[in-house]
């Protein structure tokens, strides 16, 4: 609890202390991808429904708010919620199809749905600008339209999104739903046998996860002032959502945050060291880290942090919990 308060205070203070735009930009990316990871983790981590197609919802959120903004002058704040609802609704038919498959083939079917979405938005030019995409009109400093001078405001929005995601995860973790999710994730048939409606619980968590991912999509296009199908439905979004969770610790509250902090900081250092010209370095390093984690620490790196925390602040009465590994 104290640790969380300290962390939150540090996160809130950061833009006041750090003035470097580049550093704040990295911090915004960290918060945003941590949030996407948290959204993915609800479904992929707790219920072990390993989606590789969350870009579908990221893109739907991005396009919904942008279309509402440009065509109907609707504020992206409303557009963000609308995008969340659209993503939630889209997750129902997509889930109905994909949940027929389990494990790796669920993952493949989700890749296909995100790809179909991208191809559709590439194809329908008059509906959503096609492959060229569009820039988001710059209205100057207009908080009601989610546009700000300077980066601090964006930073706090991303921080708020992450806080919401973590709070929801925390509540679900400690509810019946959390236990059902873990039961389905451990063994779907056994969960069904003891009376868990696996399909319903998967559908519900998919809706929540899709909703949150769509919020990130709206925020992202508002932040970079540009949208096209290749950005909005980028496979890299789907991959990174899963990757940060797995590296950090799948099915844990703080795992995606830890994973994002590690991977994004590393990638920022690699980029400033090697320059952005050398394509492939970032993903080469990511994939090596992912392999190493899977082979030696499949529970994720969060274990190291909680071990260290226990050593620093030993709980006097509670018995020491046995950890894996």
């Amino acid at each position, binding site marked *: 609890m104290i640790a969380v308060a300290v962390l939150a205070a540090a996160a809130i203070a950061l833009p006041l202390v750090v003035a470097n735009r580049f550093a704040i930009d990295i911090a915004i990316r960290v918060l945003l991808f941590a949030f996407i990871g948290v959204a993915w983790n609800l479904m992929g981590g707790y219920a072990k429904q390993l989606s590789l197609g969350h870009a579908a919802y990221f893109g739907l959120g991005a396009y919904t708010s942008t279309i509402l903004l440009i065509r109907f002058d609707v504020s992206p704040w409303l557009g963000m919620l609308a995008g969340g609802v659209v993503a939630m609704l889209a997750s129902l038919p997509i889930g109905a199809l994909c949940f027929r*498959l389990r494990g*790796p083939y669920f993952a493949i079917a989700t890749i296909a749905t995100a790809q179909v979405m991208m191809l559709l938005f*590439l194809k329908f030019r008059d509906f959503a600008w096609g492959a060229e995409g569009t820039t988001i009109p710059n209205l100057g400093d207009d908080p009601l339209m989610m546009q700000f001078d300077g980066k601090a405001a964006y930073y706090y929005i991303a921080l708020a999104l992450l806080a919401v995601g973590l709070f929801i995860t925390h509540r679900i973790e400690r509810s019946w739903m959390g236990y059902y999710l873990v039961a389905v994730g451990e063994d779907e048939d056994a969960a069904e046998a003891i009376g868990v409606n696996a399909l319903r619980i998967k559908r519900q968590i998919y809706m929540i996860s899709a909703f949150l991912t769509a919020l990130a999509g709206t925020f992202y296009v508002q932040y970079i002032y540009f949208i096209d199908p290749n950005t909005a439905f980028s496979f890299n979004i789907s991959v990174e959502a899963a990757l940060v969770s797995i590296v950090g610790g*799948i099915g844990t509250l703080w795992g995606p945050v830890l994973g994002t902090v590690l991977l994004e900081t590393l990638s920022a250092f690699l980029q400033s060291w090697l320059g952005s010209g050398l394509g*492939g*370095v970032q993903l080469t390093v990511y994939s*090596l880290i992912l*392999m190493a984690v*899977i*082979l030696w620490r499949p529970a994720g790196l969060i274990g190291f942090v909680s071990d260290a925390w226990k050593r620093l602040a030993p709980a006097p009465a509670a018995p020491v919990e046995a950890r894996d590994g």
Partner: protein
Amino acid sequence: MLVTLAQAVINGLLIGGIYALVSIGVTLIFGVVKIVNFAQGEFVMIGMYLSFFLATRLGVDPLASLLLTMPALFVIGMLVQHFLIRRVLALGDMPQIFLTFALSLLLMNVVLLLFSANYRTVQTHYTEAALHLGSLYVSVAKLIAFAVAMALSAVLWVFLRATDLGKAMRAAAQNRDVAMLMGINPDRVFAVAVGVALALAGAAGSLLMPFYPAYPLVGQVFVLMAFVAVVLGTLGNVTGALIASLMMGVAESLGIQFVGADSGLIVVFLMLLATLAFRPNGLFGGWTR
């Protein structure tokens, strides 16, 4: 109209033969080892780069280089099974999916670092050659690729039925525990299965090289097709994967011809989604009998 249709079907069948080599590999590994190899497409890519360098540095014809790429990828497959896949077999879905997924990302990006994103092509004397049947046009390079792909599939079919090792593989696919009780060594059978699957991917790479450019992400084109074909053809069913691959080649080609140049993939993905909706277990029964 009829000529256009026939032409589209021919083009689809020819490329479908290549899809078949990739998807047979995926379904073989899935059937025997119970792992989906997300990196299968990257081994096609490696086969292509091997053929490319053999052709440009040593002057080996891409089709002849098949005799080198297949054994090379067979050995790589045994190593991948021994050092990577074997270690996650007892673990859950997450490690099993993301290990080969990480391998796929790694291979793509290492090749990108080493050889850049440039397209590499090999010109052979038959690259532009074509047979004309009436008003139909058949590319010689694609026809050879198709014929070799079908021949290799036939060899695999015989191997799975007529040899002890092949029978052991089918036994392990049907019931791993009983197969082990019958004295089958799973490590050996699994290593051979992955080796054979990767050798087929390598063959696909060599066969593609005379008419298809090599680049770091090229494997993604083929692996997505293979995944759809494997679901369509029923998981683990070799004959099913073969037939589904040919169907998908034709569907893609018809999509390109009649819906629009960028619609081939949409047609294929819609086929996948329709299959999931109506025949989630695929079009064919269990393991090939």
